[in-house]
């Protein structure tokens, strides 16, 4: 009994962030986080790479995402980077937290959903690219779901406390967090808090990037209540609050950001022959975001832009087994999203100017999803998924309709969004795996694309007007991958081709005058006839028993719009090469992050050439274990060569941080 308790405690300690950090036999860098078991679903190569990179214990969810294959971060500042899957972002992908739909309140995308989940609260990341990601909503780009940690129901009462703190020299940045988890046979709960504050960072070469500092606090709580042995209720809450968050690539900064996210879920796992589990969740979230230019000195007048986003919804997810070879998942969901944003400008000696930049609008979605994984033969696996979704969007106020009356009186629309995919996997002889995927996806236009009203886009220097009559974006997709997986070497090569129809892009409206000072004109979102996107991801991993590990990834994408210009957000040839050595409690790691120049750009959307770069990162650390106490000390130097660089997905000409010394200390206790 005593041994089992210790074993169980050990498992749970593994589940706590710092202990998992301490017990990992891999390199643990100073850029640590209390990430437990971040897993990536989607493809095996994704898992292999992430299982390697997760051990770097990156301090922010964005940095974790940045190392995931096919994931890019659209960077407008040092904080609040917006995730993109391959070339898709915003309304083209589903970004969810534990299955909950959340939409940012900022029309400039300063508050992507990913900022609400801190690593100490992140359980796993589920990435599905293309139409295969339709479980969480019809999509052409895929889905990115971040599951937050729950407090598990356990036979014995246990208590876990973790705390961590880090300091970064490049921005005088402090990052602290603390978590407490109590588990038991009837009720378990978990609470956590994170505080981060950073000054303006120093770019490569030494210059300070003004308006790049930030400050935020994040609170999370989860409680599980066991009803019967196979039933439980789970309550989750996330509160995220940010102040004075700088966005050097934009003309405004976040003065205040506030998010309250709550859910209640009922889960039953009766372990019957057919019905395996059902999860039904109701959720609600409210986001408030206020940006202004009060910290900027080179502006013609002060302005504020508040935004509100409220989403409520529910889903029920049922897992079934039809025999031993068929795993079926059925899901039904509904959600409604209300958004509103406005802008007030304060000219001197003149009346204030006000505009609804996103008039009060409601978008409702109802959908049904069915997925089946069928093991037709020991080496032949088929996966099917299909989803049908209906979305309805309308303006809610007379003021909004009157404002939009300038352009159209038809602002209420209904769209049907079918998606589906088929995947075949052949477990070939000789450790080879071949996977073929075909799919069809569709995405609804985003709120900005429907009802945005003179939204200034810094990237191309145009004001954007929405278009309620937009057609859905559609895509026919094919992926193929070949893998070789051995205990020492794992190699994978994936190629994809997507053909898009009714691609949404902004077109200049001649004769329209913009609102923003210096803006080049006005664009309106329209459907382009089509586009194609193709590309490849390759990865190679080596795992030697002597303590050496290496992971190398390469990504490249190419695409053309129907007008002959390049598809925006195409990735140049880029990759990460990492070597790690572990010896007893020590670890050391060297990593290069590199990219070729991106000179095939779409200037119409504001892309500029991004030069080639190569970074060198060094990390080392040591762990101390004493009974139930674990202490980690780590040091890393990021961008050792102080390279002046920016990546293809960065907005404007703002450079990324230069040489950064990071010290990280983490403590964990459990009993």
């Amino acid at each position, binding site marked *: 009994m005593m041994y089992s308790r210790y074993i169980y405690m050990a498992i749970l300690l593994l589940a706590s962030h710092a202990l998992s950090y301490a017990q990992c036999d891999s390199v643990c860098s100073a850029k640590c986080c209390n990430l437990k078991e971040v897993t990536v679903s989607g493809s095996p190569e994704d898992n292999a790479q992430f299982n390697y990179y997760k051990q770097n214990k990156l301090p922010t969810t964005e940095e974790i995402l940045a190392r995931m294959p096919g994931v890019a971060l659209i960077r407008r500042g040092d904080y609040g980077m917006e995730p993109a899957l391959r070339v898709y972002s915003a309304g083209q992908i589903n970004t969810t937290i534990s299955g909950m739909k959340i939409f940012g309140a900022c029309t400039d995308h300063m508050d992507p959903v990913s900022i609400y989940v801190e690593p100490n609260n992140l359980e796993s990341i589920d990435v599905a690219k293309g139409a295969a990601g339709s479980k969480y909503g019809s999509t052409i780009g895929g889905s990115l779901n971040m599951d937050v940690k729950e407090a598990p129901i356990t036979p014995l009462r246990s208590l876990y406390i973790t705390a961590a703190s880090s300091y970064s020299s490049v921005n005088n940045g402090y990052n602290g967090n603390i978590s407490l988890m109590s588990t038991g046979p009837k009720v378990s709960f978990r609470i956590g808090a994170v505080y981060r504050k950073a000054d303006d960072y120093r770019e490569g070469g030494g210059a300070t990037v003004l308006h790049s500092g930030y400050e935020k606090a994040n609170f999370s709580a989860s409680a599980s209540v066991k009803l019967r042995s196979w039933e439980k209720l789970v309550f989750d809450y996330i509160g995220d609050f940010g102040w004075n968050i700088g966005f050097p690539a934009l003309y405004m900064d976040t003065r205040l950001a506030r998010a309250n996210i709550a859910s209640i879920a009922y889960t039953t796992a009766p372990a019957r022959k057919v019905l395996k589990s059902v999860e039904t969740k109701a959720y609600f979230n409210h986001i408030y975001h206020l940006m202004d230019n009060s910290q900027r000195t080179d502006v013609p*007048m002060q302005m504020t832009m508040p935004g509100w986003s409220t989403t409520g919804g529910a889903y029920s997810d049922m897992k079934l087994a039809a025999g031993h070879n068929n795993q079926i998942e059925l899901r039904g969901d509904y959600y409604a999203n209300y958004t509103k944003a406005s*802008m007030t*400008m304060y*000219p001197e000696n*003149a*009346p*204030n*100017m*006000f*505009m*609804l930049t996103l008039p009060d609008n409601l978008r409702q979605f109802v959908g049904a999803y069915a997925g089946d994984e069928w093991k037709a033969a020991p080496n032949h696996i088929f996966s099917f998924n299909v989803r049908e979704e209906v979305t309805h969007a309308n303006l809610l106020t007379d*003021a909004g*309709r*009157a*404002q*939009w*009356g*300038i*352009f159209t009186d038809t602002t209420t629309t209904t769209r049907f969004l079918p998606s589906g995919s088929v995947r075949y996997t052949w477990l070939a002889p000789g450790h080879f795996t071949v996977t073929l995927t075909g799919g069809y996806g569709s995405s609804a236009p985003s709120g900005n694309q429907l009802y945005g*009203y*003179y939204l200034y886009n810094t990237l191309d220097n145009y004001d954007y007007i929405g278009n309620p009559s937009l057609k859905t974006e559609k895509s026919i997709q094919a992926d193929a991958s070949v893998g070789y997986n051995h205990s020492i070497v794992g190699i994978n090569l994936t190629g994809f081709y997507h053909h898009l129809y009714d691609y949404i892009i902004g077109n200049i*409206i001649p*004769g*329209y*005058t*913009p*609102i923003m*000072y210096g803006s080049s004109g*006005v664009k309106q979102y329209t459907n382009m006839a089509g586009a194609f996107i193709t590309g490849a991801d390759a990865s190679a991993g080596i795992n030697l028993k002597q303590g050496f590990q290496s992971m190398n990834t390469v990504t490249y994408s190419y695409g053309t719009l129907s007008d002959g210009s390049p598809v925006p957000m195409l990735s140049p040839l880029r990759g990460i090469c990492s070597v790690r050595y572990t010896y007893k409690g020590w670890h050391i790691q060297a990593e290069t992050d590199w990219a070729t120049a991106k000179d095939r750009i779409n200037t119409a959307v504001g892309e500029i050439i991004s030069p080639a770069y190569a970074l060198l990162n060094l990390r080392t650390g040591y762990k101390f274990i004493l009974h139930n106490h674990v202490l980690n000390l780590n040091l890393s130097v990021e961008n050792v060569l102080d390279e002046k660089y920016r990546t293809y997905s960065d907005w404007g000409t703002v450079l990324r941080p230069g040489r950064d010394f990071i010290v990280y200390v983490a403590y964990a206790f459990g009993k």
Partner: protein
Amino acid sequence: MLSRCLKKCRPAIINTACVFLLLLSAASCRKENSASVQYPIPSGLKLVSSGYAAGASTRVEIYAYQDLYVGYDRLSIALYDSASNARITQAQVSLATVTGAGVAAPTENPSGSSAVNGLFDGAAVLVSTGSTALTVQVQNFSNSRTGSYSAPVNVVQTSPAKSYSVTTADNAKLFVSIVQPTNPQLGVNTFELVVDRQVNSTNYAPDSTYMLAINPTMPSMTGMGSPNNVNPVYTGNGHYAGKVDFIMSGGWQIYVDLLHNGAVADSTHYFDLNL
């Protein structure tokens, strides 16, 4: 016996008589005010002047939505029988103005001879500040008599101005007044002007010979305009109506281009509007 009975009942009789007189009084009051109750003066209207139209047995009340100003002024006329004070709803009403300098400007008489909601609505273009004689001529259909009331009114200049005078490139002297929007809103607004030409030193007349183009801008936002405006076109009686779009609240300037025979006669004037 009878006297005792009357004596006993006297208080009751007096009380009953008092109640009867009270009810009679109330009924007569109700009758006197019935027209006012039926046609209350809208709360937004201000009384400009009141007097008698001699010869028509009519009391005239002149209402406007604000103090009379230089430009296009909407007027509402209420007529009352001078004897019964009953509201007159059937009459022919005509308006005329003459400034202190003896300049007559165009007016728009109430259409038809029936009051709408008890009021005869018309308009006058007031071309200068100061004292102006506003004359209301009434042909009272109830007694078939005609008379007029000349009201001395004071005309002020508003800020921002709601009219301007311009001598165009083709040497025409025009007086341009804004009619709508009176309460501009975000979105699409009707934009209506009245163009009057000075035909001689003492008279103006509506002009229909110009084409108008409008260009709304926000002075606080250099160069910013609004899209999809509809240039005013002639609708009659000197009026030109189109659409102006306001994409945001604040201070707007609506530049008016006057084109005559294809040439720009004036493009330097504008109307200030605040939302």
